[in-house]
């Protein structure tokens, strides 16, 4: 129980999961427990020791998504998203921020594999493979909003503020991006910008490849978050940032073409969330079977047993939905969009309840920084907002289910 059923996995998936679990149990969890203060180091680069990423290198989890022809590995495509889910869950079981750091690389690698011209793949994939500290970032959100502003309706008023204009053989990008995962320390960015203000966002948004050292591109700050603190979230500014024309990945239709990324992203989001839930359960199950109160171990107190059962049931329910949704994405099922949003939003709300039980069952210890349970609680809380809020996700579900009524644009506000 609690973990994925081995019978539902292929031999490779089982071995990969086991390898990740050993790395997490041997390296990551002991580091996080022993260095809990580092989460609060206000020098972002100092938080996660470089050895952790080097360890990730030993099991090869930083560079999934890089095609075999460029030195990576090809996962079985028909179960790729399920595999991503399994692995990101295992890593998040050790640290949700580390998982987030790594999965950005997989997701952006998929985009590059699909849309970047071969010569740029040949340039960047080897660099990604060579440098253990090399991270990728995906830049959609802007100061004026993210999915809450532009995804409900596909109209010009909702388009991105970041603009890209073709000037000779260069695209010139101006604008700002914020709340970007890995934004603070990535080496290569995929940036979305408006290239046609007259049409809706789905027809007028293009994506570009922007190397960190491009003139006119600045990383302005690291956002200090309440959870997921080992991933450095950043803010970016583009001022007449000139990108060679061949760095255009998808013209105008970038939002639609990136569907593959968005769907896999929702599943991975839910899976990381599940990993935090599993960590909550494992830590709590251990605690209540050892901590004695009123002359008997906690688990023998019925009120404790009820909470623990509730945690386990919610985790299993989330897992069932994540597995169904990831299968739907892998099989390109017509309901995949709906299901992956359902998995993301359901995981975030259910695991928040799981984390609340964990906090409560640890009593005063649950609130202590050095005990590590409050960290799981904070990490769980972040998922309510990451990759769309609960309310926006619900709206997307209903828009998809009822496109003719809920999906119909009511017109701009007066």
């Amino acid at each position, binding site marked *: 129980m609690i973990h994925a059923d081995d019978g539902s996995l292929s*031999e490779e998936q089982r*071995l990969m999961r086991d390898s990740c679990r050993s790395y997490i149990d041997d390296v990551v969890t002991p580091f996080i427990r022993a260095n809990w203060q580092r989460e609060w180091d206000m020098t972002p680069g100092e938080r996660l020791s470089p050895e952790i990423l080097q360890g990730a290198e*030993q099991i*090869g989890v930083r560079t999934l998504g890089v095609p075999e022809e460029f030195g990576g*590995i090809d996962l079985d495509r028909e179960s790729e998203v399920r595999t991503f889910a399994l692995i990101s869950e295992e890593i998040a079981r050790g640290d949700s921020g580390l998982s987030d750091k790594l999965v950005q690389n997989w997701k952006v690698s998929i985009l590059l594999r699909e849309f970047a011209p071969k010569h740029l793949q040949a340039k960047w994939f080897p660099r990604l493979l060579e440098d253990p500290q090399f991270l990728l970032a995906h830049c959609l959100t802007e100061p004026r909003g993210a999915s809450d502003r532009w995804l409900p309706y596909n109209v010009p008023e909702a388009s991105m503020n970041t603009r890209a204009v073709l000037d000779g053989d260069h695209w010139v990008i101006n604008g700002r991006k914020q709340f970007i995962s890995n934004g603070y320390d990535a080496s290569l960015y995929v940036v979305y910008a408006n290239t046609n203000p007259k049409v809706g966002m789905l027809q007028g948004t293009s994506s570009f490849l922007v190397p960190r050292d491009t003139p006119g591109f600045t990383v302005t700050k690291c956002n200090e978050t309440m959870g997921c603190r080992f991933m450095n979230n950043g803010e970016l500014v583009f001022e007449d940032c000139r990108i060679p024309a061949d760095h255009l990945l998808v013209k105008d239709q970038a939002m639609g073409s990136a569907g593959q990324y968005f769907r896999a992203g929702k599943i991975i989001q839910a899976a990381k969330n599940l990993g935090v839930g599993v960590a909550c359960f494992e830590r709590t199950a251990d605690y209540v079977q050892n901590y004695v109160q009123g002359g008997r171990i906690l688990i023998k107190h019925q009120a404790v047993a009820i909470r623990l059962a509730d945690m386990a049931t919610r985790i299993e329910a989330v897992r069932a939905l994540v597995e169904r949704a990831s299968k739907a994405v892998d099989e390109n099922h017509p309901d995949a969009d709906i299901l992956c949003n359902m998995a993301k939003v359901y995981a975030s709300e259910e695991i928040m309840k799981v984390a609340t039980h964990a906090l409560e069952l640890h009593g005063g210890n649950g609130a202590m920084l050095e005990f590590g349970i409050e960290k799981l609680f904070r990490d769980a809380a972040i998922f309510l907002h990451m990759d769309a809020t609960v309310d926006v996700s619900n709206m997307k579900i209903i828009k998809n289910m009822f496109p003719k009524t809920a999906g119909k644009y009511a017109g701009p506000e007066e």
Partner: protein
Amino acid sequence: MKILVAVKMVTDPNVKVRALTDGTGPDLASVKMAMNPFDEIAVEEAVRLKEAGLATEIVAVSIGPAKASDTLRTALAMGADRGILIRADQAVEPLAVAKLLRAVADEEAPDLVLTGKQAIDDDSNQTGQMLAALLGWGQATFASRVKLGDGTLEVTREVDGGLQTIGLSLPAVVTADLRLNEPRYASLPNIMKAKKKPIAEKSPADYGVSLEPRLRVIRVEEPPTRQAGIKVGSAAELVQRLHNEAGVL
């Protein structure tokens, strides 16, 4: 130079195993399985010898149920070149294991057989020794250091009194102790690559070896539950209780 590595699937070392209520054996239903940790060390040593250019091929062999192919696949992901799975659904005693491995060694003609000093399930610690005897090869058990020369082997062994270094000529059988090395993780890319490496499936009958048990398990029971400790009021009481109740003073 060719290395044969024998690996066994055992219960995961982190899992708490319980005895079946009827006392016929351990309860292994839905218990997580893994490669015997000492065999993992043996595989790592073989891979290091290959990486150092001293070995050319590593063949991993396992005797067990269909699921033991996971264990072989792990060995392949760590760096072994191909696998042999000898299918056996019942428990196989050390002598039968040694006979099967001898048959494989006859067929494969390795220069070196590496395996763990013992498996953590039955802790027999017999297979390596029996295999060397059956083959008529030299043996170095409980190895904590292996140095390969030209047709020779220098092995440091962990013995009761400390360390003993012995020289052997090849072919030989070496069993790995805990401190020989620290095994690597099977990396995800290598797990995918291992998928393409071949595993040949065999049966004990293919090698003419009978698995007929020679040992009979009479009863398997759990160790008695430890009594809870007590707190004593003073040093004098401690001494008195150690003397009168524990009988150790």
